[in-house]
């Protein structure tokens, strides 16, 4: 029996066995990844993207690599995978599992480090699920019997069995990303490197992904290194955090607890990315104990603090507070005129297919910030295109009051850029929008894009690209702005900027209707919220009340404070209720 386990263990990735696998698997003291005095600059450029990086990641650990946009996170991450390392000048050295990655033989190199990227779609190579799973093993020339067994085992572990025979084009985004993970894990890597793997997924799919990732780490012992800017879900899983500064130096290397303390104490802008529980704890100043990270810890922490402050919390009953309304923020009333109205809209993509909008009624007013939330495939995007007139309703009608101009901004901002520089791109629609170069300059200044005019639009960061797309659309001067997932995949700081832009637009009297999965963002910005479910709007409410009355589909803050400090939906609300801090 023991022999059997050993022989199972031994071949690891390598059916064409790498000579030193056994030695490595027994040597526990060897760190999975070690960077020593590592610096990087692009060929021909003097400025260092990364400078003097020193750290070591223990085998089997779960490490988060984070930092503000432009801090060289991805470059650092790619240096861990020899095939994908960015070309440029490097100094110092890298050891992966104790060896120099540049001397890996190609098969071992492909197997040892697995890499999962951001976009679920583009990483898929073949057209069927089973072929995608087998792809890596086919490449390294695995014997058929062994390959079939590995693929079967992996499909089992990831719960892919049910859709093993499907075409990849019929999978949901979450399934695609799980498949990408499985297709890498099937090669039995020792280290798994992930570059923002959930940024394109909705929150439910993202949670599923993290659950599986945690199992990969905990049950298979694979070392995980991940770049992530949504720390709410991933921080509780990690045991190691690396934090890069904008200058490309490593400013923190330690445990998540220390990291959270450090960011809170330094009042770093990165604070916005921390979990709600942690941000709430910050309102109470310095802490002697561990800062809460999860909703559960947050609830315990907040209750204890309120007792200390001799403000008895009501019973710690999650459902108890649902009815009561000790409002800490007066609900904003929307007073503008109705500019866009849909009544009883039915729509389907094809006569053979089911209706994906079923009798939707909606009213958008000028100056209104309106959010539509709901799961993937609930019809949100379709509703936006119907409102924009891109899709014609089969029954019911969409009415624009007067001659209001409606603009729809698609989910992928790249679909709007056609020129080689951002400046040219913003000028592109002059003939349609009747604006001139002065307007473009003003718009760029307003969105803080002036520095970026000469850049290629595709080279912008996620947040910058979103702002640039918004600028291009706003140059057409629409009265109603429809946006599909405007904050998908962008970091907390950029989110805050977008929120401010939205608020300005509403003040100018424009109506802004957007869909979003990020409930914290919605709670921050929107005045009115609708939930879509089953291809129809199931409820519409003033935003604060909406999240207060929702028990499960609500912000983390609302889930933390429910029954303890009722009526709080955002960390700002908590700050206001406690009468302290800016609630950032």
């Amino acid at each position, binding site marked *: 029996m023991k022999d059997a386990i050993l022989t199972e263990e031994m071949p690891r990735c390598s059916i064409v066995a790498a000579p030193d696998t056994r030695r490595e698997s027994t040597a526990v003291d060897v760190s999975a990844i070690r960077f020593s005095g590592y610096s990087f600059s692009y060929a021909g450029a003097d400025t260092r993207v990364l400078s003097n990086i020193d750290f070591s990641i223990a085998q089997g650990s779960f490490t988060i690599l984070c930092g503000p946009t432009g801090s060289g996170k991805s470059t650092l991450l790619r240096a861990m995978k020899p095939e994908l390392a960015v070309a440029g000048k490097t100094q110092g050295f890298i050891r992966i599992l104790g060896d120099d990655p540049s001397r890996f033989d190609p098969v071992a190199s492909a197997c040892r480090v697995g890499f999962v990227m951001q976009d679920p779609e583009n990483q898929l190579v*073949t*057209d069927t699920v089973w072929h995608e799973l087998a792809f890596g093993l086919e490449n390294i020339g695995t014997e058929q019997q062994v390959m079939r067994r590995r693929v079967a085992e992996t499909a089992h572990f990831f719960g892919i069995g049910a859709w093993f025979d*499907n075409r990849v084009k019929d999978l949901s985004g979450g399934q695609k990303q799980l498949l990408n993970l499985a297709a890498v894990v099937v090669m039995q890597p020792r280290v798994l490197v992930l570059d923002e793997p959930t940024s394109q997924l909705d929150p439910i799919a993202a949670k599923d992904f993290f659950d599986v990732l945690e199992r990969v780490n905990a049950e298979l012992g694979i070392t995980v290194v991940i770049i992530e800017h949504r720390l709410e879900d991933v921080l509780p899983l990690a045991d190691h955090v690396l934090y890069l500064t904008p200058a490309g130096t490593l400013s923190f290397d330690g445990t998540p607890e220390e990291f959270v303390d450090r960011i809170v104490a330094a009042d770093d802008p990165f604070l916005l990315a921390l979990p709600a529980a942690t941000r709430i704890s910050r309102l109470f100043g310095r802490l002697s104990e561990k800062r809460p990270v999860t909703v559960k810890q947050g609830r315990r922490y907040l209750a204890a603090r309120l007792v200390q402050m001799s403000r008895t919390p009501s019973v710690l009953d999650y459902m108890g507070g649902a009815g009561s309304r000790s409002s800490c923020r007066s609900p904003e009333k929307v007073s503008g005129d109705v500019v866009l109205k849909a009544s009883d809209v039915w729509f389907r993509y094809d006569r053979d297919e089911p209706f994906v909008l079923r009798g939707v009624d909606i009213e958008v007013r000028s100056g209104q910030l309106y959010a539509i939330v709901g799961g993937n495939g609930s019809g949100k995007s379709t509703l936006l295109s119907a409102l924009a007139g891109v899709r014609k309703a089969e029954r019911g009608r969409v009415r624009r009051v007067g001659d209001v101009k409606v603009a729809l901004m698609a989910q*992928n901002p*790249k679909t709007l*850029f056609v020129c080689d520089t951002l400046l040219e791109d913003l000028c592109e629609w002059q003939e349609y929008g009747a604006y001139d170069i002065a307007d473009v300059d003003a718009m760029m200044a307003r969105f803080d894009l002036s520095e970026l005019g000469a850049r290629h639009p595709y080279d912008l960061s996620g947040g910058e690209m979103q702002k640039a797309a918004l600028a291009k659309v706003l140059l057409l001067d629409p009265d109603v702005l429809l946006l599909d997932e405007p904050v998908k995949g962008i970091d907390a700081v950029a989110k805050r900027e977008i929120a401010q832009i939205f608020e300005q637009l509403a003040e100018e009297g424009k109506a802004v209707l957007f869909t979003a999965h990020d409930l914290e963002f919605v709670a921050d910005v929107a005045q009115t919220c609708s939930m879509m479910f089953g291809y129809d709007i199931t409820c519409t409410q003033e935003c604060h009340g909406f999240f207060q009355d929702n028990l499960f589909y609500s912000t983390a803050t609302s889930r933390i404070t429910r029954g303890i400090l009722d009526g709080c939906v955002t960390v700002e609300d908590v700050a206001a209720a406690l009468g302290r801090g800016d609630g950032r």
Partner: protein
Amino acid sequence: MPSRRAERQAFTVGKGLFPTYHPAVTMSFFLTAVCFAFCSMQPVYVTISFVMASAYLVFLRGWRILGRQLRWLAPLALFIALLNSLFYAAGATKIWSWGPFAITLEGCLYGVFMGIMLISVLIWFACYNEVMTDDRFTYLFGRAMPTTALVISMISRWVPTMATRGRVIYDAQESLIGARDTSRKARTARGMRMASVLVGLGMEDSIQTSDSMRARGYGVGKRTSYASYSWHPREKCALIALASLVVLNGVLMYVATVQFAYYPTVSPLRPWWGYAPYAIMLALPFLVEMEAIGR
């Protein structure tokens, strides 16, 4: 968007037992069907091929799909018939004439059967697409040329992806500036721009795809193949039966076709036992099915 299409594709193998046969058998069958369809313009042979192809497509995908195929195939066939009768007026029976142009009954008939022949070939291809999925094709030719096989698999993923992406880009731009384009010139310019976005996005995406391939060791050594099919007796039987029918029908078809001519007048057609083997050969997928039911 849970569509019926997605449900159908829950299994990549087409309906029935025939698609479970070794890819070499299914491939040979479709090759045979298409070659024979091309080889004879004799009306009975054309009709048999058309009927059998349609029957199999209905069996695989249902009436609705056949209807949908015919909706665009029928006008095509009519167009070919018209073109042929206009430009090749060799027949003896004039229906209508105008100056140098004349339409003859024979020309019309020839055109009609040529149209039906083409339709039947296209319907065979529709069936082929159901049965010979890319992985089966890859299996058949993958070992001889692993790279080609992979490229085919990648292309078959790319085509739908590009189509979807094109639609997304079109929608994104249409919603903003579509209504403001009035002149044809502006529309053409916009079309060009959209194509450039499509190419730009496609390039971006393909860089990521190639990264993903390299990360998983593509090109490090000799590739192996996951898929495997084995040769059972039933497969050998089917292949032998198919081969003998091919020989028999080759002779019969030659005889029938030589005796038949459209011009100058259409030769008369009589009932003949020799058509039966052709129908039997093309009914191979159904025979396979019946054999299983008979057990």
